[in-house]
């Protein structure tokens, strides 16, 4: 490997050839400000168009300033990162960006989390000398994502997330020059596009241009309505990240405090989506075993691999992009929707209430869940199984609104019966978790043997696409895992072309799985945060007394009292769904 020696701000530094000035500077503690630049190792995410020009530095012998994020170190380079020329240029560039950005910080959804705001502070911008016409675009409010492109600074991160990481292809830079902006085709609303609402664009947007649709007010309204029983469910990944919103270290598990806070907020029942995750394993696992057995017995009408269907972003993705394959994914609903269906039937009956009297709120790390609960097939006579879905970030907002000092809360337990869960339900929050949970149960159900070691390390990790073979007492099961829709697409193409020999594939739309969901506290491109959240999830699993879904006593009770058995008629009615071909057809004149 070749090394190059250079000096940055008079400090000598030796780096590998190919290192950028920005990285080299970072290695010796010099933080060159940057804006459009974002690089997430392991996530296949690299956005460095060199467009914002905030990171410019002076390189001796060079005519103009160099963008530190794109300029590779060369032997003997002399770099200055804070000369008058550099600072003036940087401030002027920043003023230019701000001159085309609404000064709405006080009321902006991103305020306090905004990278642009931070940068303006760091550069000491106190006045914008260059003023003029500002860009104005039509607002776009989809069920999950709000686009306020007046606030777009053309960093292109969302475009990279949407096209390169997720390969969804909704967004593109459109128009040219001052008029350029990132938008869906024909500048239509996201509603009319193939958007999966995975929210990765929101997760990486440095400004308030892309934010989630905020439903906190709907929650507050429900909570104060005396005629409503308000039930909340919290997804596994939420507890591993919520603490960050209150200044805690990433990876801090706050399950108990979260339950306490929800109770303080006034929810009548604080339940756990993990319970529904265990239920999902029962249904999906049984469906898998059924398909597997029939397949092994030579039934040609059965297709393998089975694909998981817990992730609504992923579901919408294949409905748009692979409509010819909609019979492959499991028909099991996602845990959120299973929870809603059970809450409004089984649990409502227990309470002796009509389903309309119940309001089911979900707290999700996800934006697609906001969309999922609006899907028509998930409501009965116009009453949605899940009424409102809010993100981890919105929950933090609700907690702050209610003047709750989160850090000082004493841990509390979930309510029963829908609050009990196993370690298998918890790990749904990370890539590899759903399939591991399924394997834990399927193994015992299929082989009739007791599974000693429940950790399947071969299924864990952060690589975007993984494969593993699990030994089912002599039968080798080939398992594929993909997180990030771009990786999913590759696996799916293989399945489509018959190149795949997988029996089951787990897919999660977001890099890292739900822990990296679009509704989580902003990670600002730091992959370490995701890894810490993942660790926290596995930690919670390890600490659970029961770690296999089928051993959850409340799940067993649910089947005994209500559903009968997995894949029963009632299960089918409440817990399974079907998919739609969403490929857009061009109207053709007869």
């Amino acid at each position, binding site marked *: 490997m070749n090394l190059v020696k250079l000096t940055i701000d008079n400090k000598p530094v030796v780096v590998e050839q190919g290192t950028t000035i920005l990285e080299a500077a970072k290695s010796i503690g010099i933080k060159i400000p940057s804006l459009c630049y974002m690089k997430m190792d392991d996530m296949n995410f690299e956005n460095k168009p060199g467009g914002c020009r905030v990171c410019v530095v002076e390189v001796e012998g060079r005519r103009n300033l160099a963008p530190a994020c794109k300029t590779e170190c060369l032997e003997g380079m002399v770099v200055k990162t804070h000369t008058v020329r550099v600072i003036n240029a940087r401030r002027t560039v920043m003023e230019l960006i701000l001159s085309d950005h609404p000064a709405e910080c006080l009321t902006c959804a991103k305020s306090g989390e905004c990278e642009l705001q931070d940068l303006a502070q760091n550069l000491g911008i106190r006045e914008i000398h260059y003023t003029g016409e500002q860009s104005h675009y039509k607002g776009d409010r989809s069920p999950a994502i709000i686009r306020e492109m007046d606030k777009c600074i053309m960093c292109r991160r969302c475009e990279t997330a949407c*096209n390169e990481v997720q390969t*969804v*292809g*909704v*967004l*593109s*830079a*459109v*128009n*040219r020059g001052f008029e350029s902006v990132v*938008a*869906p*085709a*024909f500048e239509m609303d996201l509603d009319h*596009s*193939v958007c999966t609402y995975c929210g990765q664009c929101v997760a990486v947007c440095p400004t308030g241009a892309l934010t989630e649709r905020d439903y906190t007010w709907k929650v507050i309204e429900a909570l104060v309505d005396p005629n409503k029983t308000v039930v909340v469910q919290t997804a596994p990944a939420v507890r591993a990240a919520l603490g960050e919103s209150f200044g805690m270290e990433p990876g801090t598990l706050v399950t108990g405090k979260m339950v306490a806070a929800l109770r303080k907020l006034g929810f009548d029942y604080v339940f756990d989506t993990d319970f529904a995750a265990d239920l999902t394993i029962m249904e999906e696992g049984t469906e898998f075993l059924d398909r597997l057995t029939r397949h092994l017995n030579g039934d040609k009408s059965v297709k393998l691999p089975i694909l998981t269907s817990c992730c609504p972003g992923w579901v919408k993705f294949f409905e748009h992009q692979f409509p010819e394959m909609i019979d492959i994914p499991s028909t099991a609903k996602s845990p959120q929707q299973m929870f809603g269906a059970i809450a409004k039937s089984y649990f409502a009956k227990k309470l002796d209430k009509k389903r309309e009297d119940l309001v089911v709120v979900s707290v999700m790390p996800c934006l697609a869940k906001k969309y999922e609960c609006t899907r028509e097939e998930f409501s009965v006579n116009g009453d949605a199984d899940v009424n409102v879905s809010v993100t981890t970030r919105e929950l933090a907002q609700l907690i702050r609104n209610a003047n709750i000092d989160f850090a000082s809360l004493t841990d509390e337990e979930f309510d029963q019966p829908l609050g009990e869960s196993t370690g298998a339900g918890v790990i749904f929050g990370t890539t590899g978790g759903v399939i591991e949970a399924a394997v834990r149960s399927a193994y015992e159900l299929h082989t009739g043997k007791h599974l000693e070691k429940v950790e399947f390390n071969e299924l864990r990790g952060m690589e975007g696409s993984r494969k593993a073979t699990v030994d089912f007492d002599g039968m080798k099961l080939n398992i594929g895992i993909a997180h990030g829709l771009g990786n999913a697409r590759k696996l799916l193409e293989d399945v489509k072309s018959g190149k795949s020999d997988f029996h089951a594939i787990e897919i999660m739309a977001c890099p890292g799985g739900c822990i990296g969901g679009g509704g989580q506290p902003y990670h600002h491109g730091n992959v370490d945060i995701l890894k810490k959240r993942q660790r926290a999830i596995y930690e919670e699993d390890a600490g659970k007394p029961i770690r296999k879904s089928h051993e959850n006593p409340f799940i067993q009770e649910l089947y005994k009292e209500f559903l009968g058995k997995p894949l029963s008629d009632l299960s089918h009615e409440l817990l399974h769904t079907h998919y739609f071909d969403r490929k*857009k057809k*061009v*109207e*053709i*004149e*007869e």
Partner: protein
Amino acid sequence: MAKVKIPDNKVQELKDICKSFNNDPGELINVLHQAQQLFGYLPAEVQEIVADEMNVSVAHVYGVVTFYSFFSMLPKGKHPISICMGTACYVRGAEKVLDEFKRRLDVKVGETTPDGKFSLSCLRCVGACGLAPVVTIGERVYGRVSPDDVKKILDEY
């Protein structure tokens, strides 16, 4: 956006165009050129078909269409008027000629008159600098145009 329907046979022609370039996304611009020749402009439906055939996202196609000034999503008028705004024409008064066209037709640059007769656009240098300022209407080239000539020119159509 008004919905435009395209006749079936033209859809086939469009698909054939894509195929003639092996549906290679690298040939997108060449495909769009031919598509625009076929339809006169590039309505959303055309872009959707092209995207589908060439296996790229519609957003990408739209991003490309809106980047290049040669591509238009609006139908041109029966007589497309182009004012050369190259430097040579500019210093010889093209702007005043443009203003006069705008005034007489009551349209902005890039628009078509309500009756669909004329559309107005600017272009950069047709290379007839000796004739500056230059106006083209369809294939016809008018040289050394002054604002006073505008009425007379329009009356020819």
